[in-house]
């Protein structure tokens, strides 16, 4: 029984883990409460699936609609907002679609589609991919053709491919920052009005899975919204830039 072994199992996305934030947050929590935390970093879809199956106690992901589904279907108790970062568009230095400086992701997508420049899509149903689909929908473009490369990979690998192919890509800022120095793929659109990327945290419902370590899960949810945790989140920098902003 999870509760019996006292371990808190946290499913989260690879991008969160890779940003290095959890490596700061988790030890502070587990040391002060004496609760061992096992971080299982997988794709958003898989993380939510683990929650649904009761294999983890708590999920921290960024796919608002899917998260709400989890709650509505009764497998999650409640969704709490934790923080946000942003989605940006990176692309080749030459910027063939001339999107640099735009303040709206949708407009940039339209220009890319019309320019015939290459675009790499994660194609993996991740939070980022869902966001991308949503933007295409909003600008009413059905992307397909040789210019649109669906790679079906994680963010880091997709960035590598975009770099190799000199293609545009929608990415979360954190992963891009982490890889910045290895790529020649500058960000062309950031701070966009439609670029916000919200992270939510949900405890798995013990009514569905009785063995869930609900006490620890609730403690963690409480703690991550505490001032102590917020300070860690706001203070976390990658390549000198703040990555996550707490939601007040």
């Amino acid at each position: 029984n999870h509760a019996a072994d006292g371990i808190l199992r946290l499913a989260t996305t690879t991008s969160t883990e890779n940003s290095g934030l959890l490596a700061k947050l988790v030890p502070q929590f587990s040391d002060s409460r004496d609760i061992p935390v096992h971080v299982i970093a997988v794709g958003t879809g898989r993380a939510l699936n683990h929650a649904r199956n009761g294999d983890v106690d708590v999920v921290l992901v960024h796919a608002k609609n899917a998260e709400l589904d989890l709650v509505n279907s009764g497998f999650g108790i409640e969704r709490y907002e934790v923080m946000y970062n942003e989605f940006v568009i990176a692309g080749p230095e030459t910027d063939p679609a001339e999107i640099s400086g735009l303040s709206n992701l949708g407009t940039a997508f339209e220009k890319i589609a019309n320019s015939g420049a290459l675009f790499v899509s994660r194609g993996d149903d991740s939070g980022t991919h869902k966001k991308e689909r949503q933007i295409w929908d909003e600008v009413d473009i059905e992307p397909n053709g040789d210019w649109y490369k669906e790679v079906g990979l994680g963010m880091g690998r997709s960035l590598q491919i975009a770099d190799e192919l000199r293609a545009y890509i929608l990415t979360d800022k954190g992963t891009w920052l982490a890889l910045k120095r290895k790529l020649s793929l500058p960000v062309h659109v950031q701070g966009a009005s439609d670029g916000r990327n919200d992270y939510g945290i949900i405890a798995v419902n013990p009514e569905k899975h009785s063995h869930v370590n609900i006490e620890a899960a609730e403690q963690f949810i409480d703690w991550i919204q505490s001032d102590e945790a917020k300070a860690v989140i706001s203070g976390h920098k990658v390549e000198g830039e703040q990555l996550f902003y707490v939601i007040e």
Partner: protein
Amino acid sequence: MDGLIGASAEALRLLFTGDREIWEIVAISFSVSFRAILYIVPLAILSAFALAYGNFPGRRVLITIVNALVALPAVVVGLLLYMLLSSSGPFGGWRLLFTQGAMIIGQMILAFPLLVAMIHVSLQGVDLSAWQTARTLGASIFRAMFTIMREVRFGLIAAIVAGFGRVVSEVGCSIMVGGNILHHTRNIPTAIALETSKGEFEQGIALGAVLITLALALNFAVATVRGRDMARH
């Protein structure tokens, strides 16, 4: 359990309805791995013969190394190949990255140690007098090799089948140098990895079932071709 039943139903659906996308992925999988095995088998056979019958210094060390290289993780092969083929790498000019060509090279490298190890084991089971008999009856070294290959044909087939199985199911290298690009380099294992990362476990297992069903069909076809011959073994 529901999941498994769902996965089985989905596998059947994938296999028996003409889902174009799935057959494209299957075709890429098998054609890439076929070619990889086809190109590497001759070299593997020659190497196994050299290790079995050769008489050169360092032979035992080479046998040990080949055996150890079976442990080479696919993703490491993928990473190395990526570095070589990347546009900033030494062979970037070939523009092979994210093509089936790159996947084939990766799978050739991956299959090689297993093929050599297994063929070498087969050859060890053949008495030296078999080789000597072929030679004394006038076979050239080359013909004698073919004769011995025929003597160990079951082991050879098992090796090729295992080598094929090793590469047709590997994901680390294909995803790294192929890029899992839909219609181009997405094969069954990378598609499974994708479905898995999405949390679409049933779909992943269904794809796996498709792969195994086809691998079984292929193996039974091979077994039927070698046919009656096999009765003695």
